[in-house]
């Protein structure tokens, strides 16, 4: 997410030169679940600040309780997809929800595939 945002910013700043060699571009997500996950991430990013501030009011021992109850209602009124808990770190290539290594964002099967073909930088078969 952050990487994508950064790439967008860079493109906006720099002039996009027409590439001489067109490369393959993925125009579809792997499956609908991945697409929904992408939507949730976007919405969560938009409402992140608000949620943080309203939660700061709620989880408080100083402010009056009435205020906190009002804040509870407000946060419940936000769209359901805005909470970060609903985001699932799926595999980027296969959309597998489980067995995903966070550093590479790919599932274990894909990781093994690439590592055996020596396409993972700095990854070696363990032997000790």
């Amino acid at each position, binding site marked *: 997410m952050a990487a994508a945002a950064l790439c967008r910013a860079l493109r906006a700043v720099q002039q996009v030169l027409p590439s001489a060699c067109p490369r393959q571009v993925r125009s579809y997500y792997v499956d609908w679940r991945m697409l929904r996950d992408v939507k949730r991430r976007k919405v969560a990013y938009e409402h992140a*600040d608000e949620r943080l501030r309203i939660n700061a009011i709620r989880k408080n021992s100083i402010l009056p309780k009435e*205020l906190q109850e009002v804040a509870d209602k407000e946060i419940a009124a936000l769209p359901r997809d805005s909470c970060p808990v609903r985001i699932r770190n799926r595999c980027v290539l296969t959309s597998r929800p489980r067995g995903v290594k966070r550093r590479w964002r790919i599932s274990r099967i894909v990781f093994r595939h690439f590592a055996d073909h020596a396409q993972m930088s700095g990854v070696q078969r363990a032997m000790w």
Partner: protein
Amino acid sequence: MVGEVQGCKLQCAAGFTCLRLSALLCFSDAVGKDQAGKVGAVQPGEEKLAWRPHSNLPVSEGGLQRSWRETLCQKNGKQELFSTSSVLSKDKDKSAASKDSTHEGVAKKQEDGAETPKQKLLDIIGNMKVEVTYRKKLQQLKASESKKQAMKQLEGLDSEGSVPQGIAEDTQRGKPLNPELVKAASAVASSLPHNKKQTVSELLAQLRRHEETTDKQKEGGTINIRNVISEMTVKKQSPAQRGARISGRISLQLDEDGQRIRRERSSAQPGDSRRSLKVGKRLNIFTKASTEPEHALKTVSSPTIWDLEFAKEVAAVTAQPPRNGFEEMIQWTKEGILWEYPIDNEVGMEDDAEFHEHIFLEKHLEGFPKEGPIRHFMELVICGLSKNPYLSVKQKVEHIEWFQNYFEEKKELLQEI
């Protein structure tokens, strides 16, 4: 008269530890001239406040000073003229002792008891000058002065045996020192109770060092880092050249010649380029050229659509497919697919705000009530924000403003409570 003047000079010189000898001499001259006509008067009250010039020597300097102190105690009965500038000085032992010894030798070349204001001024100025110099120079100059004094005093008392000793030692070390200084050194050593040869050698070594430093400063040989670096690079090239020559000899003759020629050229060119780059005046060609097209661009109002299209066409035609992976990576970096290495974590961020704008956020709390739970809450918020290094100042201000808006909306509710 001459003798008196000399004596005065000695006394004055003995007084100062620092040693701008020329300044001292002029002071001494002035003093001498003032005092020449006057009668020497006893000033017992001022004996203790001897003419003690500034010395920045540490108290622990040691054996020499203690010995001087002993001699001083023994000679308290002497009558001598001292100025009030002694009040300004600090350690006086060595100089005082030397002065006492000089006075001994100078018999009764007494100076005037009267202290003219001029003398006082001169003395004060002289002492003030003393404070500026370095310690080592002080020591060295002190040593040299004391030697001069000792030499002059004990001209009659010098044993002939000590002089040739000093001279012999001096000549052994190459650089010829002033024979007077040598004599003075030997005289001083003889006067001290400790090992004579050691003291003489130490004093001479100090003198030599002092002379070397003064010579260097006269020549103007300040440390030039560029020269040092250029020298270093030249030295580094030679082993490489030697290696090349050796390898060249082993291979065929043609290769030897070719390699030698190439390496000589290559070795010469970087050396020349280095020298030519660093040395010489700037021609300011490129700076001028860069400024001109900027002005030209500013004069143009805005490029039309046709110009943009033309530029795009040209870029599309000239852009060749990447020949290798490096060019591919360059293209990706330009397009924004690849980050720039070394990775800069603050690429998008441009936080020009100073630290105090991040930390002292109380000025944004003006819209809130001064007392109550809300104020307490907001102060905690500000405390947390001040410790947050990840947000920019704008974001922090937005944060606080959001809270302000929120609480204003809830004012009715709050008033009910």
